[in-house]
């Protein structure tokens, strides 16, 4: 078993042993003890989510995630830098379409994501419990995630009105400033709140018309990777959100240095990683947003990954 996994193994588990066991089965039935019941569970293979498809990592590598009891929860894809580059290509290809979609449509699609998550709430509660979150907290986290999506769905056609401007220039021109998405955004999800933390990190990015490549928390990747299934059934166009699992230490530099990524949002991370990200980001004057701790949803997180475009036109005959 991987070192990181052991270190992160949680001791508290208020879910009943049976629940935990059945969850373990559903995550990776092959490794759980043979069940007393007659039917053998079918485990899910956790894969990447790139360009609207669920490929395995091109590298063929994996890493193991342990559940709260230290049992193997799943073999996760250990995404490579090439997987990341593929994801950037997909995100870039999806950008014009998504940025050009009407705010109303983006709002409806985000709302649809919320609807799909609501319908699959139990799946995520189970996954959270497997990782050691108690039942009530798991339920709360899932409902908070749904509400976060609804919150940002509502912002898609409002932030522009709040943060744009018509500028009263002194010359005879009509002059206005609007917001446009910065482009392709790479996101490193923090270790807190496997589902809520992940969705809080990416929702404002895509609400504003950007496309994203997100790295799930290394310690706690199950919910983030499963969230791809929700996205996949929600009319989110292929490539708008791409989800990788893997070693943050291995991938963070590429997330920060890639020349066709316009902004990076790093949640968590220690001082040396932050410094590395900021240094690498300078390669292409990437916008860097460091969030040392989780913060509650607000429209300023949409604005963090927007550019202001100012247009002038003469007034007169």
């Amino acid at each position, binding site marked *: 078993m991987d070192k990181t996994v052991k270190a992160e193994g949680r001791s508290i588990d208020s879910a009943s042993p049976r629940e935990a066991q059945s969850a373990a089965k559903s995550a990776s039935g092959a490794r759980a003890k043979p069940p007393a019941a007659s039917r053998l569970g079918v485990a899910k293979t956790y894969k990447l989510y790139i360009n609207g498809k669920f490929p395995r990592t091109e590298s063929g590598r994996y890493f193991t995630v342990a559940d709260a009891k230290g049992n193997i929860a799943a073999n996760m894809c250990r995404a490579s830098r090439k997987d990341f580059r593929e994801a950037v290509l997909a995100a870039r290809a999806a950008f014009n379409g998504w940025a*050009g979609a009407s705010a109303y449509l983006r709002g409806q699609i985000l709302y649809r994501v919320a609807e799909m998550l609501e319908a699959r709430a139990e799946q995520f509660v189970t996954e959270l419990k497997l990782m050691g979150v108690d039942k009530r907290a798991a339920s709360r986290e899932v409902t908070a995630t749904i509400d976060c999506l609804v919150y940002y769905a509502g912002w898609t056609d409002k932030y522009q009105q709040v943060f744009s401007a018509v500028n009263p220039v002194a010359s005879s021109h009509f002059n206005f400033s609007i917001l446009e998405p910065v482009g392709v955004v790479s996101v490193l999800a923090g270790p807190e709140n496997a589902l809520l933390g992940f969705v809080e990190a990416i929702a404002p990015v895509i609400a504003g018309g950007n496309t994203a490549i997100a790295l799930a928390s290394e310690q706690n990747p199950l919910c983030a990777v499963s969230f791809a299934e929700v996205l996949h059934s929600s009319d989110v166009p292929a490539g708008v959100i791409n989800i990788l699992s893997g070693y943050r230490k291995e991938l963070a530099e590429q997330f920060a240095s890639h020349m066709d990524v316009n902004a990076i949002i790093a949640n968590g991370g220690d001082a040396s990683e932050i410094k590395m990200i900021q*240094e690498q980001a*300078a390669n292409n*004057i990437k916008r860097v947003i460091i969030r040392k701790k989780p913060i509650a949803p607000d429209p300023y997180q949409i604005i963090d990954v927007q550019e202001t475009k*100012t247009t002038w036109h003469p007034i007169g005959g």
Partner: protein
Amino acid sequence: MSKATAPHSLNFDTGWAYSPAPESTDHVEIKDQYKLFIGGKFVAPKSGKYFDTINPATEKVLARVAQAGAADVDRAVTAARDAYDTVWSKMKPAERGKYIYRIARIIQERAREFAVIESMDGGKPIREARDVDIPLAAAHFFYYAGWADKLDYAFPCRTPQSLGVAGQIIPWNFPLLMAAWKIAPALACGNTVVLKPAETTPLTALKLAEVIEAADLPPGVVNIVTGDGSTGAAIVNHDDINKIAFTGSTNVGRIIQRALAGTDKKYTLELGGKAANIIFADAAIDQAVEGVVNAIFFNQGHVCCAGSRLLVQESVADEVVAKLKERMQTLIVGDPLDKNTDIGAINSAAQLERINAYLDLGQEEGAEMFQCGGKTPDKGYWCQPTLFTNVAQSHRIVREEIFGPVLAIQTFRTLDEAVAKANNTQYGLSGGIWTDKGAKIFSVGAKMRAGVIWANTFNKFDPTSPFGGYKESGVGREGGMHGLSAYLDLH
């Protein structure tokens, strides 16, 4: 290439010449030597070193200016920190605003003096310094003065807080205006400032120090340190600075962004550009040609947002190029202090060398160069307005910022091709669109990845109008309400 059509051709060969119309300089006082402005006083640099600032139109020394070393920068930062802690951050915002209004008013009163010095120290035509640089600088202070006590209204559900000491490094193309862009919002938001003007154009910033003295600003609120790149580096690397604002090249911006890694300093970067000016066949061609001239030859092309690439729809390309060549021959290159002059001196010998290297390179790459052949003064640094045709997207004169009066012309057939070419650059500062169709302005404007779009106009600036780039043209905005956030903590 077709000839310009005869009925429209400009005929200036009338036997009449422009008489010299020199701006007088007798009312302007430039001292022999300038010290550093720290803590409200002019103090000698600890290094004891001074350097010359020259008039690029005559190569004559205008003054000797102090070279600030790391110890001087440290002294300036200490003064700024003291002023921040003891006075400026505690002052009622409305009072802060009134000080900034005073600066605006004094600049207006002394506008002509500033314009003349700007022209002498930097080489720009007096007409531009007088009509653009100085009035806009005053307007910037006037605009931001009013924000000082209204910040809470700019950011819903936030309580804006000042940052502390801002270190500001500005370029040589619009010396006083860039100082205003930096200092005005910083002060309005409650910060104190250490500003470094460019090595080749320090004089108007030092004159601004006199204005700040005359406005009775508390000592240390604004400190002005002159010097070269090493002075800038000392500012960037100083531990007690909370915010860095830089305008200059993308390469230096990259170095600064890297140097700030691992610190908590906020930063804004206004960097290079390679703007595309797109002329569609349905544009008002004569207006468009005037716009192109203004886009690339304004301020000798020393403009980060200059329209240095021209994209012309194929069906009107011959007409546009012919008219452009004809119009270029009416441009007067020469004495910046002459009110008839359109194109002044190149800012420095080093910059002229860079531009000339690109002129050679463009021809080596196979592009066709057109240059007006007028006579220029014997002394000084001059570059005739230049355009290149037959250029390819891969040519370095199309890809790299030249920062001189050099235009690269390409053609296109479809709207999509124009947009693709316009966006095929690492820069994204500005762009121009010339068409009579409103719908096209909105569709092309939305597709261009640039922070400022000029439609049927170019190179317009205003303190209320946010300015700044996409991609490698920088981070953040200056000007307007959007320019405030660069100098505030909104968390």
